[in-house]
C-alpha cells in the first residue's frame, strides 16, 4: 500500500518536473525579449542589459532553472512583467472565481448527468432512453463557448431587452459579500459548463449501469424481494461508481484549463482569463505559474483518485507491484 502510493507520488513529481522544464525551455527559446516587454519600445540598450541582469536572464539556462525551482519551493514565483505584482498574489487572487465555477458546475453536472444515465439504463431502448442519449450526444458535440454565447443571448440579452432581467450580464460577486448574488451571477456559467460535461456522465453512467444491472447478484437481490429502487440506487449504482470517480478526478484535474473559455465568454476574472491575458501580454512568469498550477491540479486529483481506489480495491494494489 505504502509502496503503491509512493510510486504514484514519484510519478507525480516526475510529471511536475518535466512540465516545469517544458515551460521553462519554451520561454527560453521564445524570440521575445522580456527586457523589451518590461522596459517598452524606447528603452536604451543599457537599461535593457540592467533589467536582464536583475532578472538573471544573462545567466546560463541551467542556472536560471535551478534558481527558479529554488524560489518556487519557497513559494516565490517572481514578479509579473506587466503589473510588477508578485505572481503568487496575482494568481491566488483569481482562484476563488475559478474554484466557484468548477465546483459549482460539478454539482450541476453530476446532478444532471447521473440521473439521466440511470433512467436510460433502467429502460434501454425506451423513449426516455432515446431522449437521454440524444441529450448526451448533443452535449458532447456542443462547443462550450457557443453554448455560453447562446445562453447569454437568450437568457440575458433578450429578456433584458423585453424589460426584465432574468440573469445578470457577467461578472463575479464574492461569496462572502452576498451568497445569493454569488449564485445568481454564476448560474449561467454553471449551467453552460454542466450541460456540456453532464453529457459525458450520462453516457458513462448508462454504460456502467447497463453492465451492472445485467449481473447475477442484481437478479439475486430482486429475487430476494429487495425494493427495485434500492436495487438500482444502492446495489447497482454502488458498483457502477468507480469509473465515475475516475472520470471526475480527470475532469476536475483538467478543469483549470477547461474553464478558460467559459471565463472568457462570461467575463469572469478567474485563473483561465488571467492566463489568456498573460499570454497576450507575453507575461512569462504568470504563464509559467499558471501552467504549473494546472499541472499540480491534475497530479493531485489523480493522486486522490488512485489512493481512493487502492484503499477500496486490493486488486489495484497488487497490480502496481
Amino acid at each position, binding site marked *: 500500500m505504502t509502496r503503491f502510493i509512493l510510486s504514484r507520488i514519484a510519478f507525480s513529481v516526475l510529471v511536475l518536473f518535466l512540465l516545469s522544464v517544458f515551460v521553462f525551455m519554451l520561454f527560453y527559446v521564445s524570440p521575445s525579449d522580456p527586457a523589451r516587454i518590461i522596459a517598452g519600445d524606447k528603452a536604451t540598450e543599457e537599461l535593457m542589459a540592467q533589467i536582464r541582469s536583475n532578472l538573471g536572464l544573462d545567466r546560463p539556462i541551467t542556472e536560471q532553472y535551478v534558481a527558479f525551482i529554488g524560489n518556487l519551493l519557497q513559494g516565490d514565483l517572481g514578479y509579473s512583467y506587466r503589473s510588477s505584482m508578485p505572481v503568487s498574489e496575482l494568481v491566488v487572487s483569481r482562484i476563488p472565481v475559478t474554484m466557484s465555477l468548477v465546483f459549482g458546475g460539478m454539482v450541476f453536472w453530476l446532478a444532471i448527468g447521473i440521473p439521466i444515465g440511470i433512467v436510460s439504463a433502467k429502460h434501454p431502448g425506451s423513449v426516455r432512453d432515446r431522449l437521454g442519449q440524444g441529450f448526451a450526444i448533443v452535449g458532447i458535440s456542443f462547443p462550450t463557448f457557443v453554448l455560453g454565447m447562446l445562453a447569454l443571448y437568450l437568457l440575458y440579452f433578450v429578456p433584458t431587452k423585453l424589460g426584465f432581467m432574468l440573469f445578470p450580464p457577467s461578472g463575479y460577486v464574492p461569496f462572502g459579500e452576498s451568497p445569493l448574488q454569488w449564485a445568481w451571477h454564476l448560474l449561467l456559467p454553471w449551467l453552460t459548463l454542466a450541460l456540456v460535461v453532464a453529457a459525458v456522465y450520462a453516457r458513462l453512467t448508462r454504460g456502467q449501469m447497463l453492465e451492472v444491472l445485467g449481473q447475477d447478484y442484481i437478479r439475486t437481490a430482486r429475487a430476494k424481494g429487495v425494493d427495485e429502487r434500492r436495487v438500482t440506487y444502492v446495489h447497482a449504482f454502488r458498483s457502477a461508481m468507480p469509473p465515475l470517480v475516475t472520470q471526475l478526478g480527470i475532469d476536475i484535474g483538467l478543469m*483549470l*484549463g477547461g474553464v478558460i473559455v467559459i471565463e472568457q465568454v462570461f467575463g469572469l476574472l478567474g485563473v483561465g482569463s488571467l492566463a489568456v491575458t498573460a499570454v497576450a501580454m507575453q507575461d512569462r512568469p504568470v504563464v509559467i505559474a499558471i501552467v504549473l498550477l494546472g499541472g499540480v491540479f491534475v497530479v493531485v486529483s489523480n493522486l486522490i483518485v488512485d489512493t481512493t481506489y487502492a484503499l477500496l480495491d486490493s486488486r489495484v494494489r497488487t497490480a502496481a507491484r
Partner: protein
Amino acid sequence: MSILPKTPAAAARASTEVQARGSGRLTLTRLLRDPASIASLIAILLIIAFALCAPLIAAWTGHGPTEQFRETGLTPEGIPVGPNSEFLLGTDQLGRDVLVRLAYGAQVSLLVGVFASIVASVIGIAIGTVAGFSGGVVDTVLSRTMDLVMSVPFLLCAIALVSVLGPSLSLSIAVIVFFSWTGLARVIRGQVLALRHREFVEAARSLGASRTSIMFRDILPNLVVPIIVYTTLMIPAAIVFEATLSFLGLGIVPPTPSWGNMLADAANGSLYLVAWWMVVVPGGALLALTLAFNLLGDGLRDALDPAAVSKGKRA
C-alpha cells in the same frame, strides 16, 4: 477483367475480394439502416461540398472572404447588417460577408479536424502496437509516456506553446496531434496485449513469421474496428479544439476566416448581442459538423460491432 478466373491464384484472389467486400457490404447495410448515420453522412458530405465550393460562392456573391464592405455591409453607426438579399447570412464587424467566410472557414475546420485526427491515430496505432507487442521495458516506458501526456493540462500548455511560437495553422495541427494520440494508443495497446498470445498469433510465429509481419498482417487487421471508430470520434474533438484555439486568438491568424475566429469576432465586445447571426451562423455550423461526426462515429461502432449493440439491448 474477365468473369472467369484463369489460374488458381487469381481465383483465390478473386474469392478473397468477394469476401472482403461482403464484410464491408454487411457493415454498409447496417449503417444505412440507421437513419441518424445516414443523416450525419449527408450532413458531412454537404459541409465538405460547401467548403469545396467556397471560391464559387465567393464568385457568385462577388464578395471575397476578407473583402470589407463598409458602405453596404455596415449601418451608418458601424453595426453589422443582418441577413438580407445582398448578404444572405449578414455581415461581421468589418462588413465582411458571413456566408463567404463560413465557406472558407469550413475548409479550415475540416482540414484541421480530419488531418490532425488521421496523423494522431497513425501515431497512436504505432505506439500502442509497439507497446502492447513488445512488453517489458519498452511497454513500461511507452505507457508511462502516455500517462505523462495525459496528465498535462493540455489547453494551458497549448496556449503557452502558441504564445511563444506564434499562432499558425501547422502549429494548431501539431498541438492537437500531440494531445490526441494517447487515447487510441491506450486502446490499441490493451487490444494487442489481449491478442498477442492467441492461437493464430502463435501459429503465425510457429510458421516463422517475423515480428513485423505478425504485427501488421496478423494483429493489426483485428483492430480495424476500434481504429475506425476512434478516429471518427477524434475528428469532432479536433475540430472543437481548433475552434477553441482560434476563439482564444491562438489558432488561425486573422484575417483568414475560421469558425473559431468568426466566433471570436462575435464575442469581441459582446458584439453578438446586437448581431446574433455572427454567433448563430458559425456556431450552428460548428455544432452541426461535430454532431454529425459524433453520430457517424456511434453509428459506425454499432455497424462494425453488432455484438456491442445487442448486448446493450439485452441487458
